Structure formats: structure tokens, C-alpha cells
């Protein structure tokens, strides 16, 4: 296995880097010191650009390029997106719990590069205990002279604050997140303007995911060249993959971009629980199309491009694995129920469409549907797709559309007059194999 760049606490001898002294003893805050005392903001942006670092929050946008878009107005803000609410994602939490100072150091370097003197870390409300620990860690950084007025005796001043959300998935979307910090309902804004031009309080703002920021100190310390030795040409570095569902060893795996689904699932994570057969994969939580576990899919490399070429997304790499006992119409019900709950209600197609999809999928499970209901379900997905203000609307249709296409038999078994099925998905016998 390659070394851990982000989950460094997993390296022998570095288990205690969640303590400031241990983190500093391992070279921690040297990158920040170098940046603040000897680099211009532009030089930092150029370095991150050269590294090819791409945003880990889902879209994979090049981080250095994003920073270079900041409008020339002040004050500016940097916001860490620690909302981590995509079903199947639990990486930012491990980073902040076990390697918090590397994340904070990344946030602080980003703030210097953006010439921001205030940064916020937006955490989902459920990370209450974690936020309390981070509050204390930020206070330690003030005491050490790494935060506050005239950092390390320079002209640069920086304050970092945590801001807790309160249970709303949509606040992970960057403009809804900014609304939420402003004390408003977490509803996405119309774009453009993008946050780099008009973000928090209407000022130029950088929003980056927690894991993205945790990559920055090692890039500064070891250089863009070194970073590019990891991963692939267009997806450099490592990625923390969150494995959940029917995998033998669920958890986070930090691997270089470019290893295959097969290497990750069967080589590193012990394969499928109970020796069962893998039926399907959701590579990006509830938000991207389901993949049938064919050899072609299993031999696909985990990069943004390769997974997109399969018709799905790598997203934040919340990889949910499902074995042969799982009914994909039930999976669609679960994801649809999630999006119905999380729709912010601003656009009619998303609000009403998620309601109707859930309604039909509930009836599918109850066994009271006809072929015309499945056609209606498909029709509703088309009423939502491409007609919404933010990507959540499209996310909501992806598991439904892909399961109808790849696993029609999973739906057909529920048609009125079809053989009765046991009530619980987990107890269900084998269902038909994927068609492609």
C-alpha cells in the first residue's frame, strides 16, 4: 500500500498527531510557516495549480484554478466545507478527529493564499462533539502564535471559527452553505455569480472540502512534483475512499487515484461479506447512477474521468456495495426517500417530484403496482432531470433511472399478479442478474 498523505495518523508512530506537540514534532505547521514567512499568495496559488490537486467535495474542480478566480475585492473569506452528509461518506470526520491539525493547517494556508483574515469551518450539526474539540484546538493555535494578530511576527493576521449546521444535507452545496452561515435558510443561490466573486456576505470567497484542504500542507512541504508521482495524470494524489454496505471490511481506505474497483474491494477491503456475490455499486453515495458489478466496471480505475465514462460519478467516493440479495427497487426507494427529506423546497420539480417518486416506490415495495406505474415513475424522473436550480434534483433521479434500466426484473417481481415476495429485502432470495 502507498503511504498515507491525508490519513497520516494511520502511519506507525504518528497515532498521536491529533495532539499539537506530536503534530509539530512530525513536521506539522512547517508548511504554514514557510508560506507565511517566505512566499507570496500568488506563489502559493501557482504551487497548488502545478500540483493538479482537485476538489474532493464531489466535483473534482482544480483547487489552484478556483483560488485564482477570486475577484479583486476585500475582505475575502475562506470556508471549509465539513458538512459531510452524503449517504456513505465518513472521511472528513476521520480527518478532523484523528488528523485535525493537518486539516487546519491546510485551511490556514488556503486563507493566506486567498489573503483572507477570517475563515469558517462549516460542520454538520451532528459533529457537535468534534466541533467542541476543534474549538479547543483552534484556541491552542492562537496560544502558539499560529493564529491571531501578526502570525509568526508577520503582517498577516488570521482568525478561524467553527460554525455548526443543524441537520440539512443541502447545506453541503456551497451556496446553500454560505446562506446558512449568513443565518438564513439553507437554500442554494442562483449561479453565477460564483462564490469566488460573490460569496460570504457578498465578498470573494473560497469554499473547499475538508479533505481537499488536508492535502495542502504535504503539497507545500514536498512539492508539486512529488504530489504528481501519486495517482494519475489528470487525477493526481490519493483519495480517501469510504466503503460501506455489504463489504467485508467497511471503512476508509486512502489509495492513489487509479487503482481499480476490484483492487480496492477485493484486494484491500476483503471482498463481499459472507462470501456472497457483489451485485451493484453506488460509487458516489445516493447521488450518482448505480453500476452493475460487471467485470468491466470492476476493472475500471477509480478516477473522476474513468467513473464518469461508465455513466456514473466518483463524487466524494462514498462507495456503497450491494450483494445479490438486494432488491434495487428498494435501493431506489431508500435514496428517493433521502432526497425527498432533504429537498430544500425551492423548486417545484424537485420538491414535488421527490414526493411522487417516493409515493410510487413505496407502492412498488407494497406490491400494488402495474406496468403503467413504472412508466409513470420513469416519466416523473424526466420531469425533474435538468429542470432544477441545483444538482440535488438530478441526484434524486439517478438511482431510480439507473435501477429501472439495469435491473428491470427487480421491479417486475412486484407487479400485481407476480409471485409474492417476502417482506424484508434482507431476507429475500436471489433476484435476477443485471442485464448488462
Amino acid at each position, binding site marked *: 500500500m502507498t503511504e498515507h498523505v491525508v490519513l497520516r495518523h494511520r502511519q506507525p508512530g504518528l497515532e498521536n498527531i491529533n495532539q499539537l506537540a506530536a503534530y509539530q514534532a512530525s513536521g506539522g505547521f512547517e508548511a504554514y510557516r514557510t508560506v507565511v514567512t517566505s512566499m507570496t499568495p500568488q506563489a502559493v496559488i501557482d504551487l497548488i495549480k502545478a500540483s493538479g490537486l482537485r476538489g474532493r467535495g464531489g466535483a473534482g474542480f482544480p483547487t489552484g484554478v478556483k483560488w485564482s478566480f477570486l475577484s479583486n475585492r476585500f475582505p475575502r473569506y475562506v470556508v471549509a466545507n465539513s458538512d459531510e452528509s452524503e449517504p456513505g*461518506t465518513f472521511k472528513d470526520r476521520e480527518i478532523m478527529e484523528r488528523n485535525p491539525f493537518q486539516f487546519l493547517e491546510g485551511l490556514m494556508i488556503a486563507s493566506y493564499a486567498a489573503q483572507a483574515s477570517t475563515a469558517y469551518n462549516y460542520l454538520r450539526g451532528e459533529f457537535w*462533539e468534534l466541533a467542541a474539540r476543534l474549538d479547543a484546538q483552534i484556541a491552542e493555535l492562537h496560544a502558539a502564535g499560529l493564529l491571531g494578530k501578526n502570525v509568526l511576527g508577520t503582517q498577516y493576521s488570521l482568525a478561524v*471559527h467553527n460554525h455548526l449546521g443543524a441537520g440539512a444535507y443541502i447545506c453541503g452545496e456551497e451556496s446553500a452553505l454560505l446562506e446558512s452561515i449568513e*443565518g438564513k*435558510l439553507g437554500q442554494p443561490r442562483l449561479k453565477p455569480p460564483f462564490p469566488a466573486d460573490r460569496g460570504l*456576505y457578498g465578498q470573494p470567497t473560497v469554499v473547499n472540502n475538508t479533505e481537499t484542504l488536508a492535502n495542502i500542507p504535504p503539497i507545500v512541504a514536498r512539492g508539486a512534483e512529488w504530489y504528481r508521482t501519486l495517482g494519475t495524470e489528470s487525477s493526481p494524489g490519493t483519495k480517501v475512499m469510504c466503503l460501506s454496505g455489504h463489504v467485508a471490511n*467497511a471503512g476508509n481506505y486512502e489509495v492513489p487515484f487509479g487503482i481499480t474497483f476490484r483492487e480496492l474491494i477485493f484486494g484491500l477491503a476483503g471482498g463481499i461479506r459472507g462470501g456472497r456475490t457483489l451485485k451493484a455499486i453506488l460509487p458516489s453515495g445516493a447521488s450518482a447512477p448505480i453500476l452493475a458489478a460487471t467485470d468491466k466496471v470492476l476493472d475500471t480505475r477509480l478516477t473522476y474521468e474513468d467513473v464518469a465514462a461508465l455513466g456514473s460519478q466518483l463524487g466524494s467516493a462514498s462507495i456503497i456495495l450491494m450483494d445479490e440479495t438486494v432488491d434495487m427497487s428498494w435501493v431506489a426507494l431508500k435514496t428517493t426517500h433521502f432526497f425527498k427529506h432533504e429537498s430544500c423546497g425551492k423548486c417545484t420539480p424537485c420538491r414535488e417530484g421527490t414526493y411522487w417518486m417516493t409515493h410510487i416506490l413505496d407502492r412498488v415495495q407494497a406490491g400494488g403496482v402495474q406496468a403503467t406505474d413504472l412508466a409513470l415513475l420513469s416519466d416523473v424522473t424526466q420531469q425533474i432531470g435538468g429542470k432544477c436550480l441545483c444538482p440535488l434534483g438530478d441526484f434524486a433521479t439517478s438511482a431510480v433511472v439507473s435501477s429501472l434500466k439495469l435491473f428491470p426484473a427487480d421491479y417486475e417481481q412486484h407487479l400485481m399478479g407476480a409471485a409474492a415476495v417476502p417482506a424484508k429485502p434482507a431476507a429475500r432470495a436471489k433476484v435476477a442478474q443485471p442485464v448488462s
Partner: protein
Amino acid sequence: MMSLQQKYPDEVAAILARYPADNKRSAVMPLLYLAQRAENYVPAAALDEVAALCEIAPTQVASIVGFYTLYYDKPGGRHRIQVCTDLPCALRGADDFAAKLCAHLGVEMGATTADGKVTVEAVMCLAACDRAPMFQVQNGAGLTFHENQTLESVKALVAKLQAE
């Protein structure tokens, strides 16, 4: 009733200091957590004070309480046991776990036990999918995660909460 500023003067001041002076509205979410601390819901009287501190209308504060699921405008049980039944946890037995917990408590999902101590709710992913079944316990004092749970472990916890 004592105001938040009387009860928690230092915390109120620290919260307001985190945001620019002309954007006091940003303090609404942290102030609502304070308002919820004593009773595990936001009493109507607190809306006016939070609104005044944030320089917005009380109806705007009420709409924040309504939008975000971790704020409550009505009292529930002293502790809310919130079981994650989202897809990844459900694949590892969470629906079954939640049903057995409800049966043990003798209540329907979403309801509160007769002694008013425990409300049980089904919630969406809590970023702990690799440690299912799991739930969080929310009360005024905060939120704690309970992971890799069994029926035995949750029964023991319930007994402890009900004895408080």
C-alpha cells in the same frame, strides 16, 4: 424566565464576536443551540430574544427552527434516540435494529415513551456508515454518537437514560 444573556452571558458574547458586527444575523444558529439547551426544544419566548440579538424578525428565527431538523419547536422526550436507517446502515441491518428498539420501548417510530424520557426517531446518514447499527442521542446538552450497537447495548443505555 431568564434570558439567554442572563443565563449564558459569556457564551452569547463569544458567539456574536465570531461574525462581522454588521452581520449579527449569522449568530442565529449558534444562539438557537443555546436556546435549546435547557429544555431540548426552543421555547417561543426565546425566539424574540434571539431575533433581537440578531437584528431580525422573530418570524425569521421561527423559519430557521422549522427548516433545520436539529431544532425543535415542541418538547419531545428528554433524550432523542435517533437511529440512522439510511441506505448504507440499512444494508447492515439498521431497519431491523430500529424496529426491535421500538418494540423494546413499546412505542412507534417517532413517538415518546410514557415516562417522557425517550423519543425514538429514524434519521438520515450520520457519517458513521461503517459502524452500523448506530444512533445518536440528542438532548439539550448536545449530541453523542453510539456506534457498532447491539440490541443489548441499546437496552442498557435506555435503562440508564430512563433511570436519570
